[in-house]
């Protein structure tokens, strides 16, 4: 039964790939330095990073300039040497176009590295120390998940990992970064795979590549041949093969149970680019300061794969690619299926930017939505087995419980449903809306519980104060310090309130 | 076999709601949600079957021997009211949520013409006791089928962007009419 399930998952679509423009082009590592780098403090999940530098400081390339703000966030390093000009908000590469705090770094053109301290032999170090090095290097999931890689490694160590999968599927149209990375840096990726496998002590390491990338398959197979015990698995090209859940099913035949992580079934997935970054950190000691990104779309003069410094304004990157030929109908970060709309090109490249697309109206093929005709194409396309039409309908009526029931809780927002919808209904936007509203509700509900706890604490305190006053009155006859007791009570409850606040923040 | 035919005939072919047009009040009132429609049809089915049975007993053991058939409607209503009261008391104890969601429609089973209709039809058509029971059961089944079917349709109607003029009861009545057209297809069977 497991064998029958190999290479398959339910549903999925075959979008036009558009990869021909950039897949043959070698990664361009020669991007000129921009006049200013903008490094947002929130480039990973979790809280914003905390700056370690002050305005006016000179920093060296690779120097840590901000540390993780909470367990779920990551460090930030200077992509080049230069002067810290400011720490103030910039427009974020996000559909809202809202600003967020960033470090403004003016490059001095020296490209002066700070001292790198790669371990002499990473295999000699304890596993935990290796994970620590990955954490120090500020590496996050580079496929777009931006979840700190070190946390995944540490979680992986707590489970018996049977299969470690390197995700080289890259199922999004246009994007060829992983493809090129595998073609050109196959050795490093294989080495990185070996390292991660070593850290989590996985039984089996698999590099999974979609069958529409023959060059990458060849390169990785050649690189892995001498190493041994690293399998290359060719999976059929079908969107969303690159989604972790679907890839796990295609490679192992297992499903990640709802509400669980892949660890629970003994699987761990990392993106190719992440594995490459881990290899760079563990063998060369280099932190994550640059990334490969595909610049494409019909509005782009010459599509390319660029390796650019984090913080580079994307207008600069488009200029390197010959500028925007016409006003794009859609400017995207990421692929067209799951990528985010950008409001302007004046936003920086961040750790999760796998691609920057400037699409024409023809490529987007957006239409005015018409009513749902219940054709069921979305149901057939859904790789998760959900009912997108019912989810959207419930969301439209703000019936979020029903939407959850119809599958919103399991939705991975892959967009397969909206891709095939003949009525052009923006299904994913309905889901994003409903998920957002549910998030609001949850935080409101959390707040309500907190308020109630605080209330109870206060009431108790009031009671105690009253009792204390009463006691004090009675004691007054025998002359004693009257108010001390009450004052002590107050400071006590203040402390509990502070503790409660701390809990909600974490 | 004869009873089975009677059951099918009363539940589908001569459906109490869609062919005889009895019991439309709960059909419109409580079919908004599948769960309450189900509860309502269970309650009505219980009342319907039990009162059909009891009223037959009253008719043939009490009214007929004493020659006071003119009290038929009065005494049947008494029976029905008592059975409904009993159902309500029981439901309130066993399923308070359902009791609340059915609200006024639960005591209104008393005035559900389907219930009295079935009891009277039983007498008019000269059914014997097992036949009356089957007739009651079949009608109850037919009522349940229509309620559940219609509740499913209503749930979808609730999500349709019906023109304001027809929202609510009008569109429900139109749908019920359409459904009754469809049930005409069963006519002439058996």
């Amino acid at each position, binding site marked *: 039964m497991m064998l029958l399930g190999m290479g398959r998952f339910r549903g999925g679509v075959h979008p036009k790939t558009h990869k021909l423009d950039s897949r043959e082009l070698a990664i361009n590592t020669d991007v000129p330095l921009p006049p200013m780098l903008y490094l947002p403090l929130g480039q990973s999940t979790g809280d914003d990073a905390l700056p370690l530098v002050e305005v006016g400081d000179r920093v060296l390339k690779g120097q840590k300039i901000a540390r993780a703000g909470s367990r779920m966030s990551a460090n930030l390093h200077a992509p080049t040497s230069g002067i810290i000009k400011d720490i103030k908000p910039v427009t974020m590469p996000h*559909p809202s176009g809202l600003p967020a705090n960033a470090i403004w770094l003016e490059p001095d053109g020296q490209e002066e590295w700070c001292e790198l301290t790669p371990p002499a032999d990473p295999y000699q170090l304890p596993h935990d120390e290796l994970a620590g090095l990955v954490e120090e290097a500020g590496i996050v999931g580079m496929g777009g998940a931006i979840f700190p890689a070190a946390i995944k490694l540490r979680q992986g160590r707590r489970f018996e990992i049977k299969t470690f999968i390197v995700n080289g599927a890259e199922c999004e149209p246009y994007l060829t970064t992983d493809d090129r990375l595998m073609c050109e840096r196959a050795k490093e990726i294989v080495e990185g795979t070996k390292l991660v496998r070593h850290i989590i002590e996985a039984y089996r390491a698999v590099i999974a590549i979609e069958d529409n990338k023959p060059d990458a398959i060849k390169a990785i197979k050649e690189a892995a041949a001498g190493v041994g015990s690293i399998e290359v698995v060719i999976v059929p090209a079908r969107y969303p093969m690159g989604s972790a859940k679907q890839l796990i099913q295609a490679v192992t035949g297992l499903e990640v149970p709802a509400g669980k992580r892949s660890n629970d079934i003994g699987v761990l997935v990392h993106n190719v680019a992440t594995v490459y970054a881990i290899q760079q950190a563990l063998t060369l000691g280099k932190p994550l300061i640059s990334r490969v990104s595909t610049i494409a779309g019909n509005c782009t003069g010459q599509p390319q794969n660029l390796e650019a410094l984090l913080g580079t304004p994307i*207008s600069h990157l488009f200029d390197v690619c010959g500028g925007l030929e016409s006003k*794009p109908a859609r400017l995207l970060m990421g692929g067209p299926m799951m990528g985010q709309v*950008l409001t*302007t090109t004046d936003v920086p490249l961040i750790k999760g930017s796998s691609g920057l697309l400037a699409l024409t109206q023809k490529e987007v093929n957006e239409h005015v939505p018409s009513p749902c005709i219940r054709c069921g194409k979305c149901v057939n396309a859904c790789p998760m087995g959900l009912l997108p039409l019912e989810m959207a309908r419930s969301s439209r009526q703000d019936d979020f419980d029903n939407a959850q029931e119809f599958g919103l809780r399991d939705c991975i927002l892959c967009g397969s449903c909206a891709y095939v919808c003949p009525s052009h209904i923006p299904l994913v936007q309905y889901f994003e809306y409903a998920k957002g509203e549910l998030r609001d509700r949850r935080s409101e509900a959390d707040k309500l519980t907190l308020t109630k706890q605080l209330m109870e604490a206060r009431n108790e305190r009031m009671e105690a104060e009253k009792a204390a006053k009463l006691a004090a009155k009675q004691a007054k006859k025998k002359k004693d310090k009257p108010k001390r007791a009450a004052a002590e009570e107050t400071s006590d409850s203040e402390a509990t309130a502070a503790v409660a606040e701390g809990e909600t923040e974490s | 076999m004869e009873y089975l035919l009677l059951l099918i005939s009363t539940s589908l072919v001569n459906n109490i709601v869609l062919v005889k047009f009895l019991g439309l009040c709960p059909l419109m009132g409580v079919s908004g949600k599948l769960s309450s429609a189900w509860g309502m049809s269970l309650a009505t089915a219980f009342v319907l079957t039990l009162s059909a049975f009891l009223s037959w007993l009253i008719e043939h053991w009490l009214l007929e021997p004493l020659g006071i058939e003119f009290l038929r409607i009065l005494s049947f209503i008494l029976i029905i009211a008592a059975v409904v009261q009993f159902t309500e008391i029981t439901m309130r104890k066993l399923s308070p949520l359902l009791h609340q969601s059915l609200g006024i429609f639960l005591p209104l089973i008393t005035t559900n013409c389907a219930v009295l209709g079935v009891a009277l039809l039983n007498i008019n058509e000269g059914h014997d006791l097992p036949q009356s029971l089957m007739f009651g059961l079949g009608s109850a089944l037919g009522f349940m089928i229509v309620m559940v079917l219609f509740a499913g349709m209503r749930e979808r109607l609730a999500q*349709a962007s019906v023109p304001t003029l027809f929202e609510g009861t009008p569109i429900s009545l139109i749908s019920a009419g359409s459904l009754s*057209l469809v049930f005409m297809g069963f006519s002439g069977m058996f």
Partner: protein
Amino acid sequence: MSSNTSLGGASPHAHDRSGVNNIMFNVCLALAPVTAWGIFLWGLPALMMWVLCLVSAMAAEAFCLYLRQQPLSRLTDGSAMLTGWMLAMTLPPWCPWWVAVGGSAFAIIIGKQIYGGIGQNLFNPALLARIALLISFPVPLTTWIDPGVSPSFADAISIVFGQGPLSLANADAFTGATWLGDSKAAVKGGADMLEWLGANYSLHNGFVGQMRGSMGETSALLVLLGAAWLMFRRIISWHIPVALLGTLALLALVSSHTQPERFAGPMFHLLSGGAMIGAFFYATDYVTSPTTKQGQILFGIGAGAMIFAIRSWGGFPEAVAFGILFMNALTPLIDRVTKPRVYGRNRRGEAVAHVSAQRRVN
């Protein structure tokens, strides 16, 4: 350099270029062969009736869109035209103009727009109109014409806009019942089904479409041709038609084996009446059939069984419309019980059990 773009919506930013009007157009295309055959068999009145249905359906749709203050451009999605077309296919070829116009108006207004327009209706509009007509006006709806009778233009005008085919002097010579009606009356009258079949029924005529019947239901061959096109374009799937026709054939097979003098065989059931066109074109209507594959199979089985039951025991000779409409009414419930299994969950929606990877002691 900076360039501001319009914001646009959430992902995805790509589309497979399908569209509602595209689907409707393809269904019309698939109906074209049977329509042409119907016009070939029954001449000008059939053509006039078909045009009348199309035009009045679109007029009714335009009227409703105007009343509901919706853009008239909605008319271009082709759904109203298709509804009119599908109604024309179910009508006797020589039916008078008011049947065509009234039926189309009923289909669009009561069958569809009153529910809020495309995608919201509970019943297939064309079939609902057809049975409303059948029950209200049984005579013009059961006046079937011999195949190959082609009247002159003047006759055609008087048939469609005048008193109908029965007013013609020699009406008895070229009108009669369909196979289904005829065989039912015969069996009711005490005749043997086998004998009736031997005398009247021909497999070849049934398959090619040389028999009395509604305009679009005669030729199984051309229906299959259109259906093949729709399946090729992935507009319909096999689930509903196969389940429906399979159930119908199976029930016919079993009953004709046990009581051959009472029941006709599977081929007779499949080829006569609207079974073929109903299974491929009406039962597969997106709006009124279940969305999941399992649901569609249930839908087909139910419709097939209903059709057989009403054909065999009911008062009406033809039951495809009733069977499909009954299942239309059941569709919301079917959709409720047949949800696909969700990734990582079992059929009941609970997270799947897994062999928990052992925790390591670190």
